[in-house]
């Protein structure tokens, strides 16, 4: 082969390699680099999640181990705010308070209200509050009512007065009462 032809062929081949290199860069390396960058960011985010999960897990483990030792406290809290409506227990308590105060109970109605969701920041985790409304029709003296209200507000299970109606009957210091009280439970 003549030198001139060889030189031309060599230059042509060099140009082919350069163009080939540029084409591989543009068509394969650039997309591959993009994919790799995405995967690297995925790795970084997963590593961050793993770090956070590890921290949260260790905290939760600590809390759970502490919680295992708090069964007594949990029982006490359940007396004030039970994990279910416990209508029978609430009825017993409210009627015992009323009759123990000297009120003559004429009738008791129970109404279960809709659940009130929590207003805390992490409300999605916290279960709402169920409300039981007791409507007592009773009669008695002013002192018996006063005693009942004081006992109800200091009862272990929370009782909140909702409505109160007092009407004078014929007899001296004797009244008809319509007392609405709310008590609460953890909704499921």
């Amino acid at each position, binding site marked *: 082969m003549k*030198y001139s032809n060889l030189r031309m062929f060599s230059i042509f081949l060099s140009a082919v390699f350069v163009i080939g290199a540029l084409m591989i860069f543009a068509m394969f390396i650039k997309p591959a680099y993009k994919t790799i960058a995405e995967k690297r960011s995925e790795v970084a985010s997963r590593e961050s999640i793993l770090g956070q999960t590890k921290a949260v*897990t260790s905290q939760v483990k600590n809390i759970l181990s502490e919680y295992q030792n708090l069964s007594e406290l949990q029982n006490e809290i359940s007396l004030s705010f039970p994990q279910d409506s416990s209508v029978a227990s609430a009825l017993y308590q409210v009627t015992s308070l009323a009759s123990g105060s000297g009120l003559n109970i004429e009738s008791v109605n129970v109404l279960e209200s809709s659940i009130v969701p929590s207003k805390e920041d992490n409300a999605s985790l916290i279960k709402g509050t169920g409300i039981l409304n007791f409507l007592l029709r009773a009669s008695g003296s002013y002192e018996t009512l006063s005693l009942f209200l004081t006992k109800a507000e200091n009862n272990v299970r929370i009782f909140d*007065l909702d409505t109160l109606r007092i009407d004078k009957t014929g007899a001296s210091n004797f009244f008809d009462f319509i007392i609405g009280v709310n008590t609460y439970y953890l909704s499921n």
Partner: protein
Amino acid sequence: MAEQSKTLIEKEFLRPEALKTGWPWRLLVFTIFLFGIILLVFFGMKIGYEPYLDKKIKNLDAEIGKLSQSFSQSEVNDFLKFYSQLSNLKTLLGNHIFSSNILKFLEENSLKNLAYTGLNLDIGRRELKLSGTVSSYEVLSQQLEIFRQSALVEKSSFKNSQQGEKTGINFEIVLILKSDFFKETSILSAPPIIPISTPVSSTSSEAISPTSTQP
């Protein structure tokens, strides 16, 4: 002789330089090297780095999944119940109604010679409707003034009055109570209101609360 040597020198130095021509192998080698590097980078990324990252993502996912299963769902549910109880109980105790405050308030802020015959309390609306009998309009206006001046009353309004046949003047008053009225300390923090002049008259035995109290 001299001419002959000059000719030789001229021949040797003054003749035009002959350029050597050949194929540019250095350029070819360089481009082959460049092409090879590019290929190496591409295959390094595709065969080496990308599978490595995939494997790392898989391992991290597995580790995260393993961590989240390190305690049972029932344990978590029990704890969430307990936490919900605590959180809700805190709110409930914060809003706990001290209902006996209403009776204390009436005992401390009612005139002696005034008798209540009815009471209607709606705690949600903080509305207290009082009905009763009073001996004169003077006493009634004093009672209204006491309620108006009370730090625990947001708004007081007189609804109506009617001269009764035997029992004096029947009246109806509506009070809107302050939002902290039913808090534990509200009665203690509010100073008692002393009326400008308290008319002296017989105490009604039919009163709900004022029979045994003095404002």
